[in-house]
């Protein structure tokens, strides 16, 4: 047993938890809550421990050969800086969302089914992040997507079913594009191992396969991550889900399924040329502006947050599309920060919904006095997303803007600033209409949310406040290793194959 044995656990634990819950959850009282708490806590601690192991491993990469087969023949799992960064992000949010769901999901029937689907979604995301095989990536992507279609429809009201149907159709179209892309790559390279594929592609001359496959992947993963021309499903799907699932969907699912896969395939397998980067930057800038402009006029709290997800995803894609070390650092850091504060905002909206039964900003008001913790955590998250200095959102946005200026893209820098100002405006509206002002008579008797929900929100708010500390030199390895993997580009092939041969 070497230290790499930890890698398959990220798939085994949620998968076992999912089916154990569906098996015993109905018969033993409180068993589903216990299992989900233990499994998500275990996943969080294992992902932090994996980061520790990665630091001590040679070359900062760990390979696990499934069934003892060496790549490129067998499937391997790869844990490098980028995977580890994503794993910690996903499992951190998943843990707090699971804790939050314990009391929150009392409103719905059939908790065991909810936690089964939740675990499967986490399993899909973890699997997608650690796999080193392109087809395996597709399989895990489908596990996570299909679980999320079912979760969006969990309330089974007309509106939720419609949103879920729309989401399922758009998601399936995206999966089809991705699948066709993988099929083309497979027929061209005769291998599915990502590292081996990158090696073959860099040695083989081609004129049309790569641009064609690139467009397919851009459409597929663009749909999954809701970049602007492909964003229509997101504002329906994310608000319809239960709040804890909205937090997962907006917080980590679109980033794992969309952005991580996009980065992995474009940078590490195909090799990003300036053409792709220009397209990415352009899509990012459009998403940034369009998302926030659409958000301004929303009165449904969760729909407003969903539009902001589109806008913030734009920042991440813009940062990564710059292609400079600083830009990628900013993009990834914003990805992490956005996971934290957007989950927090959705959890807040869930708490408001839990207490008052509405999320229409025209009806709420003055909740700050009766729900002090929710109001304060929401203030922290709002200031983070708007990029007010001491909070984490400021640092990542500032890095992205500086990186734009450094590369000479003044237009994009101005777009980022405008997007940030409009975000601030839109969240001032949330503060004014939800938490400040006079309380309405019918809400005089509402109570603050239960302890477990407050615990999750307060912890996430603390991460928002101290998130900027990830930039200090002794903690920067967390981001720097991820950036190094992206900057290595198709050099990924050599690193993985060399580590696998050992």
């Amino acid at each position, binding site marked *: 047993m070497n230290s790499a044995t930890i890698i398959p656990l990220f798939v085994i634990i949620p998968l076992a938890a999912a089916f154990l819950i569906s098996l015993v959850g109905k018969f033993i009282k409180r068993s589903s809550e216990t299992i989900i708490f233990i499994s998500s806590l275990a996943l969080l601690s294992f992902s932090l421990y994996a980061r520790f192991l990665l630091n001590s491993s040679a070359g900062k990469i760990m390979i696990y050969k499934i*069934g003892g087969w060496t790549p490129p023949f067998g499937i391997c799992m790869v844990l490098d800086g980028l995977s580890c960064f994503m794993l910690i992000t996903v499992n951190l949010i998943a843990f707090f969302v699971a804790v939050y769901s314990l009391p929150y999901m009392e409103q719905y029937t059939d908790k065991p089914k909810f936690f089964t689907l939740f675990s499967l979604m986490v399993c899909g995301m973890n699997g997608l992040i650690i796999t080193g095989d392109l087809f395996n990536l597709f399989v895990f992507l489908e596990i996570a997507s299909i679980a999320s279609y079912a979760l969006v429809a969990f309330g089974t009201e007309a509106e939720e079913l419609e949103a879920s149907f729309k989401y399922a159709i758009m998601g399936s179209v995206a999966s089809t594009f991705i699948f066709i892309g993988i099929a083309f790559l497979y027929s061209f390279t005769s291998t599915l191992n990502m590292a081996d594929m990158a090696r073959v592609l860099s040695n083989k001359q081609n004129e049309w396969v790569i641009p064609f496959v690139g467009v397919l992947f851009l459409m597929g993963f663009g749909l999954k991550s809701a970049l602007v021309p492909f964003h229509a499903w997101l504002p329906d799907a994310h608000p319809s889900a239960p709040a804890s699932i909205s937090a997962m969907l907006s917080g980590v699912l679109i980033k794992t399924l969309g952005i991580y896969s996009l980065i992995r395939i474009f940078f590490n397998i195909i090799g990003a040329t300036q053409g792709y980067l220009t397209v990415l930057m352009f899509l990012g800038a459009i998403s940034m502006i369009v998302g926030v402009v659409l958000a301004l006029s929303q009165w449904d709290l969760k729909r407003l947050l969903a539009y902001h997800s589109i806008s913030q995803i734009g920042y991440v894609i813009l940062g990564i599309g710059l292609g400079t070390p600083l830009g990628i650092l900013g993009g990834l850091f914003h990805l992490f920060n956005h996971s934290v504060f957007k989950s927090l905002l959705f959890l807040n909206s869930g708490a408001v919904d839990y207490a008052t039964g509405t999320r229409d900003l025209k009806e709420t008001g003055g909740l700050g006095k009766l729900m002090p913790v929710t109001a304060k955590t929401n203030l922290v998250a709002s200031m983070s997303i708007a990029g007010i200095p001491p909070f984490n959102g400021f640092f990542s946005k500032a890095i992205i803007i500086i990186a734009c200026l450094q590369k000479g893209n003044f237009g994009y820098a101005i777009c980022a600033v405008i997007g940030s100002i409009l975000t601030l405006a839109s969240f001032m509206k949330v503060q004014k209409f939800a938490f400040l002002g006079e309380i309405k008579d019918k809400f005089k008797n509402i109570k603050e949310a239960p302890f477990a929900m407050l615990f999750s929100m307060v912890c996430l708010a603390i991460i928002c406040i101290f998130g900027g500390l990830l930039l200090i030199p002794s903690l920067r390895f967390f981001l720097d290793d991820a950036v190094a993997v992206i900057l290595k580009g198709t050099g990924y092939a050599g690193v993985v194959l060399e580590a696998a041969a050992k």
Partner: protein
Amino acid sequence: MINNPETGMTLIVKTITRLTVGLILLFGIYIILHGHLSPGGGFAGGVIVALSFVHLMLAFGKDVAVSRVSKNLASNLESIGAMMFLLVALLGFLRGSFFLNILAKGSPFNLFSAGTIPLSNIAIGIKVGVGLFAIFLALVVLERSK
């Protein structure tokens, strides 16, 4: 229930179904068990097993099929199938690796060969068989109001 002329299709269909449904089930099991030797395997065999129950439902009506495999049994068996597959994969840890084939491989083309592969096929067969049947049950859950 099974002899009720009110539900299901005509006598001709019912008679033919009675004759063939066992054979279809048997063929599904054959495909599952020979998954490591011939084309097919857990998934294909599981689909055929599910089809035999769907066939029963089409010919005799929903109640007859549900009396054979209830909704609870289907959902529990599905979870058990998934757990079995995971357990087979975890067995590999006994010799040090996830999904490692630790059982004796035997000689090729014998029924008892290929180590853990037939076990995985059986697990997949259970999961897919009852899973598809459960999906079909979910689709016919709505009825015309009387």
